[in-house]
Structure formats: C-alpha cells, structure tokens
C-alpha cells in the first residue's frame, strides 16, 4: 500500500518532465524574441552603461517587438524627447533598427531592438583584451573607443587614440597619427573592424522585396534581421584619409578632460576625406577568434602544448579560406601543415605525423582525417569541437553541483543514450537507493529526461519502458539561460552592495579629490595625513571589503561569460549546420 501511494507523485513528475521545454523547433530562423532572463540581463546591462531611460525604452521594445515612436512614448510614459534620445543611443550602438511601418506606406516608422547585440556589452572587456594581445596598446584603444561610442569615423578614432596614447607616454614624446592609421588598417584587413551598413540599408532591401511581390510573408521576416554589413561591397575597404600630425597632450585636470575632448573634437572639424564612413567592431570576427582560441586551449589541456601548436597552425592556415559557418576547415595535407609550422617549434616530419594520428584518434575529435593524399588530409572539426566542449561544460556543471557520482550517471546517459533505471544503477556501479536519488534529482532539475515507451497504447506502467536520457542541445539551452540568470544576479548583487555603501563611497571619493588638490597645491605632509584620517579605520575596512566583493562579482561576470560564449556558439553551430 505504502509504496503504491509513494509511487504516484514520482510517476506524475516524471510524466511532466518528459515534455522538454525545448526551443529546438525554432531552428535556424532569426530569433528576435527573448526569454525573461535575457530581457532582464539586457535591462541591467543597459542601465549600467546607458542609464535607466534607455533601459526602459529598450525593455519596452524587447518585450513588445517593433513599435512606433508614439506607442513607445505612450507605453513608457517617458517624454518624447528622451525616447528619441534613447533610440538614437541604441541605433548608434547597433542595438536598434528602424523600418517603415508594417501597415503599409505612410504608416509611422517602427523601431526594433536586438537583444543579442545588447548582451554583447557583457563581452566588451574580452574584445578589448583580445585586441590588446593581437595588436598591442594601439589596437586595444581603437577597439575600446569604438565600443564606447558605438561607431566612429576613422579619422575620429585615429585622433582620439593618438591623443590617449600620447597622454600615457613620457614627457616630450608623442604618437604619430600614421602609427594608429596602420594599426587601424590592420584591424580592418583582418576583419575585426568593418564599415557600418549605410543607414536605411534595411529600408531599401525591404522595399525591394515588398515591391517585388507585395503579399509575401518574407517581407516582415527580412526586416527582422539587421542588414548584414558584409553584404555591402566596401565593408572592409579603408578609405584614403588625409591625416598628418601627432597625438596632442592635454594639460588639464582630471575632471575637465572630457568636456575639453568634446570641445576640441568640435573645433577641428577639417575635412579628412572619410566623412560619413563610420566603423564598428565586427563581433562575429572576434567570436571566430574566441572559438579558435577555445579549441587551441582545449587541445593544450587535453594533449600537450605541441599538439595545440599544430592545431593553431592548421586554424591559421584555413582562417581565410573557411567560411564563418563551416562545420570544419578546408582539408590540409600533412605536407602543407609541415611547411607552415613555424620553425621555432622544432617539430620533425615523422613526429608531426605521429601527433596528427594522435589528434585524429582522440575521443574529443578536434581533428579529423579527410583523405589519404599528400601524406594524409586533415581538417579541424569546428562544430564537433564546439559540441564536445559544450558537452564537457555540461558534465562539469553537473559534477560541481551534484557531485562526481551524479556526473557519472550523467556521462553514462550521454554515452549510452537511453537507459532504464535498473541499468543506470548497474552500469554506474552505485548502490540502487543512492543512484535513484541522484537520478531523480537530475530529473527534477531537467538535466535528465524521461522517455516513456508503452508496449500497449494504454500506458500501463507494467507494459511500459521508462528510459532515462540526456538531450544535449536542450540541456545546453537551459544551462545558457541559467548563465544569463547568474550574470543578472551578479549584477543585481553588485548594484546592491554599492548602493548599501553609497555614502561611504562618495565620502572616499570626496576625500580623494581633496587629497589630489592638496597635493597639487603642494600642501604639507601633516595636512595630508590629517585629511587621510577623515576616513576612520572601520570605514576603511568596510571600503576594502566592498572593493573585494565588487571585484569578485565583476570577475565572476567575466568568467561566466566565457561559458555563455561557448554555449552560444554551440547552439548557433547546431542551427547553422542543420540549415
């Protein structure tokens, strides 16, 4: 009797769980709808970087899709001027697009935001850091300026960057504009920067489709996606810019700096020959780079440094020839790889062959063999590598949250696809009671799904198979949503922490300002210590711990983003390869 009573809730729960809430069906179509977690994270990111007004406007658009100005003003209750300003900011940063109204010609222009673009704010530090590792300080500052301002002309970027570099140099030295120009051109050559699509680009394409066949359902779908910058021929063409001069040093206090910057920018408005050509950061190119880096580090961790260098060489060789959505690189012969290996690696030909065989045999399948000609043809399995990395991420998430034995069950299910409860207990070599507990916990967390296969149509439990299984893609999607939630929680917590000690922070800022001004005026050391003592010991302690907490939270945001990137690329790669 007792067991029968207990059985009920479990069966019920199991039945509910097997209907996996998957977004699989959406497939490759452009997805502009966002989940609650994504919208929440977008809002927080916007609030931090563009203020609450922009947040409100963007959230309104994210929740309700395309809307015209009047509706936005009405729904948000924000004055029309501010809404217009907010939309401008969003457009400037590529997060918003305007299209003619859907109700036919003459209907008001509609605005639409792109959450994916907003979520990239989270990755800004990584873009900048990558630019630094690839192109040094100049590259770093170019990317930083462009990310801060959304889009700029080349001459504008070159001038500000040269000034900023000069500012950090020793007295009497300065940076020539030409240095920055060459760094900029390199970034464009490698497609890390691209021209912004001409304004109204979306408009013309849509009008064409609309006039071609007026009643097509494609027309609204076309306007959903932002116009691809690469569809314009001049996307990676550096204009000829007349820029001669050097970075200037400013002798200004810290506070007046920005205003002066703005003023000066307005003052020297001489023509440079690139007016109207605006540049933006090509996030997709950065993502390809991140993906390659992820594969290289994974190989280095799994095998060794040498094999990772071989994979790096293969990826570098095929960088230009492989399309961004390709499932694997173009086949490369062992001979070609050998010739391209930098001499400093000191890898002999037979050793290279051994390494390649090793890489092909590795269960992570980073490298595949595509043929035998030319000493063997090899490819890097880009998408499979992403899938395997995502799987490893899932496994480690399970391991860290539910312990290594639950992870064993999870891995077992991943490998064997479908298992009955009894089989799970046996194969995992875990006592039946504990195994059940773990399995049910995983099931309730939706990490494991239950598949019922009835032998008769009445679903009688005695004549039904109950198979446990793990679906990698939906699980990855769920984990991705969890990651978004985590980041949003981290930001929330950080805002809370800073709000709690707002007065203390303001006080310390004020005292620092006083100290700085005193030092500048050459005050006595006694005076300085006196001012310093205005912050008491406990206050100092509180400030230190606050700083520690904020740093931890910020760092955590950065690191969760690495997982987000991996899962996003995996999910995108699956939709790209099915289409």
């Amino acid at each position, binding site marked *: 009797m007792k*067991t029968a009573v207990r059985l009920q809730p479990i069966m019920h729960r199991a039945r509910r769980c097997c209907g996996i809430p998957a977004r699989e069906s959406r497939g490759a179509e452009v997805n502009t709808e966002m989940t609650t977690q994504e919208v929440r994270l977008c809002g927080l990111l916007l609030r931090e970087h*563009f*203020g609450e007004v922009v947040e409100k406007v963007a959230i309104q658009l994210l929740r309700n899709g395309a809307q015209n100005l009047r509706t936005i003003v009405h729904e948000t209750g*924000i004055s029309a001027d501010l809404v217009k300003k907010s939309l401008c900011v969003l457009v400037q940063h590529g997060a918003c697009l305007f299209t003619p109204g859907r109700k036919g010609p003459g209907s008001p222009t509609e605005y639409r935001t792109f959450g994916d673009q907003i979520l990239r704010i989270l990755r800004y530090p990584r873009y*900048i850091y990558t630019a630094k590792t690839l192109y040094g300080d100049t590259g770093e500052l170019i990317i930083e300026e462009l990310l801060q301002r959304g889009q700029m002309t080349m001459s504008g970027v070159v001038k500000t960057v040269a000034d900023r570099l000069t500012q950090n140099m020793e007295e009497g030295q300065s940076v020539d504009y030409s240095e920055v120009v060459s760094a900029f051109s390199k970034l464009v050559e490698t497609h890390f920067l691209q021209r912004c699509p001409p304004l109204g680009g979306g408009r013309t394409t849509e009008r064409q489709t609309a006039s071609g066949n007026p009643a097509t359902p494609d027309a609204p779908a076309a306007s959903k996606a932002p116009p691809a910058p690469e569809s314009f021929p001049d996307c990676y063409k550096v204009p000829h810019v007349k820029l001669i001069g050097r970075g200037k040093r400013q002798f200004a206090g810290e506070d007046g700096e920005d205003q002066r910057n703005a003023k000066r920018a307005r003052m020297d408005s001489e023509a440079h020959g690139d007016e109207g050509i605006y540049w933006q950061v090509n996030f997709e190119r950065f993502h390809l780079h991140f993906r390659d880096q992820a594969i290289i580090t994974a190989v280095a961790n799994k095998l060794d440094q040498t094999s990772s260098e071989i994979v790096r060489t293969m990826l570098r060789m095929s960088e230009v020839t492989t399309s961004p959505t390709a499932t694997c690189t173009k086949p490369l012969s062992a001979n070609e790889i050998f010739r391209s290996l930098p001499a400093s690696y000191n890898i002999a030909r037979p050793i290279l062959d051994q390494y390649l065989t090793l890489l092909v045999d590795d269960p992570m399948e980073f490298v595949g063999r595509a043929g035998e000609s030319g000493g063997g043809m090899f490819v890097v399995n880009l998408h499979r590598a992403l899938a395997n990395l995502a799987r490893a991420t899932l496994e480690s998430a399970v391991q860290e949250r539910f312990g290594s034995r639950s992870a064993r069950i999870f891995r077992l299910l991943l490998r064997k696809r479908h298992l009955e409860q009894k089989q799970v207990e046996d194969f995992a070599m875990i006592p039946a009671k504990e195994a059940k507990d773990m399995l049910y916990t995983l099931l309730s967390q939706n990490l494991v799904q239950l598949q019922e296969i009835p032998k008769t149509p009445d679903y009688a439990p005695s004549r039904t198979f109950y198979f446990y299984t793990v679906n990698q893609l939906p699980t990855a999607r769920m984990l991705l949503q969890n990651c978004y939630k985590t980041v949003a929680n981290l930001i929330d917590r950080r805002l809370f922490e800073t709000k709690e000690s707002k007065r203390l922070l303001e006080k310390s800022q004020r005292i620092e300002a006083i100290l700085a001004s005193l030092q500048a005026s050459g005050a006595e050391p006694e005076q300085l210590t006196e001012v310093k003592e205005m912050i008491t010991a406990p206050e100092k302690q509180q400030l230190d711990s606050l700083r520690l907490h904020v740093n931890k939270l910020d760092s955590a945001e*950065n690191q969760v983003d690495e997982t987000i990137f991996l899962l996003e690329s995996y999910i995108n790669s699956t939709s790209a390869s099915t289409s």
Partner: protein
Amino acid sequence: MAGKGRGVAAFSFNIESLGIGRGNMPETRVGPTPLFPNTEFKPVPLKVGEDEDYMLALKQEMRGTMQRLPHNIKSQSGKAEVEKYTQRYLKQSRMDDEEWTPATKKKTVTKSLKDTADVLNKLEELAKKDDMNPEKSDDETEKEKKPGNEEDEDIEEEEYEEEDIEEDNDYIESYFDNGEDFGAGSDDNMDGEATY
C-alpha cells in the same frame, strides 16, 4: 473495473520489476524547495591571473567611462518633473472619477443614510447650480468653441472654489457634491466644450 484505472494499476503488476522496491525508495519530498537551500557542493573558486585582473580592470573602467559619456541618458530630475507629476495626477484623478462609478455609487448610499438635512441642503444647492450653470455654459460657448485644456481646468477649479464657499459642511458631503457637480458639469460639456 477498478483495476483498470491508470493510477490503481499499480497493484496489478509487480512493482519490483521497475526497480522500485520497498526499502530503496528515496524520501518523499514535502513542499517546495527552500529559497536558499544548503549547498552541498561549494562553488569552484574563480580563476585568478594576469588576464583576469586586466579584464576586470577593463570592465570597471569601461563602466566608469560609459557612465560619463553623453550616451548615458539621465532622466529629467528636479522641479520640472514634480510639476509634471502633479499635472498628470490631476488629469488622472479626473479620469478615475468618471470611470469608477461603482465606488461613487457606494458612497452615495452610505451618505444618504446619514442625514436628511444634508439632502435638503444638497437639493437647495442643486437648484442654485441649475440656475447658475446654464448661464455659465452659455458664456463659455460664446467665448470659444474649442477652449484649450488649461482654460478648462481653470474653469473647473473656479467651480470647485465656488462650492467650497457656498457650504462649509462636513467632508463627506462636499465630496459627494463634487461628484454630482462633476456629472452635471460633464453634461453641460456635452453641448459646449467637447474637449473631454
């Protein structure tokens, strides 16, 4: 019959065959999981290194700069906002009066029980108003066909003030009168000033 139902079918077969025995079932769970459950496994420490430190610095610097850029739009604060709010509040309260008829009805019921003298007062006053209002509305129609919002408000306010002077009774009565008066006013508006 009884054995055929889905739930009861649990009796008709050997549960052991599913691997669910008497002793090896986990504890049943009662209620939702707590908001802050005890974490059995502590989180892994964050990665520490030069890269991470630099990215952290970049992130914080970026945030600081972005907040100082003109792209960071501040909502209007100070006097203007407060005034706007009161304006909106005035409009809103008026709309509420019109829409929330059930609430006002309720009040009339409770009120009518209160005092007959009040009712008499009210009748008197209504009579007065009937005398006054037509003139007024005529005036208004003569003045302008389509008066602006502000002017309307002014006129409305004048009316309120007049009532206050007319009778210094208790609060509830004046409330009720306002409602009535409003109704009357809006009736008048039907012919003259059709802005509402």
